[in-house]
């Protein structure tokens, strides 16, 4: 696997494959840095704390049944699972899947944009626990 251009990322939200509507996706995997510095130290020291994950997804809007808006609207204010792959192909060492379970969706924008814009929505999922799979 070499460097590559992101062309066909896979994004599944609440078991619904919305990849065909996704224009951009970012999986921000973080673990809190918990300070553990004690007396006698000459510099700060940290230990890993809780995961602090964020997924941002931009989607083209579609009000048709079971598409973008219908999928997202009932998820606001709840937790769900989001699965992201850099390519829609099978999970492998060069195409790992990132599953974020129990991630919270605080809000959505059913209508957003200026005159002439393509209707779209931006979503931010916060929290949850991430696991990576390579097979």
């Amino acid at each position, binding site marked *: 696997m070499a460097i590559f251009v992101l062309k066909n990322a896979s994004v*599944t939200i609440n078991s619904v494959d919305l990849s065909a509507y996704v224009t951009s996706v970012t999986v921000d995997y973080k673990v809190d840095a918990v300070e553990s510095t004690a007396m006698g130290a000459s510099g700060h020291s940290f230990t890993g704390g809780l995961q602090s994950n964020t997924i941002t997804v931009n989607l083209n809007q579609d009000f048709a049944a079971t598409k973008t808006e*219908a*999928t997202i609207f*009932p*998820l606001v204010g709840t937790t*769900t*699972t989001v699965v992201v792959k850099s390519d829609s192909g099978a999970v492998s060492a060069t195409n790992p899947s990132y599953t974020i379970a129990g991630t919270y969706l605080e809000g959505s924008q059913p209508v957003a944009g200026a005159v002439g814009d393509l209707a779209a929505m931006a979503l931010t999922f916060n929290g949850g626990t991430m696991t990576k799979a390579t097979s």
Partner: protein
Amino acid sequence: MATYKVVADNIAGKNPGDSITDEELEGTNIAALLESGHITKTTSKKEAE
């Protein structure tokens, strides 16, 4: 174990008309899927009696 019928064409790994269980939907917000019309609850014969 609850079983649902897949209605939508975009449920990952399933086709419309397939059955899907709550075990397969672990971690999924099932209430949201029902509300959005992606799946419908199936009634077993035992439940119907």
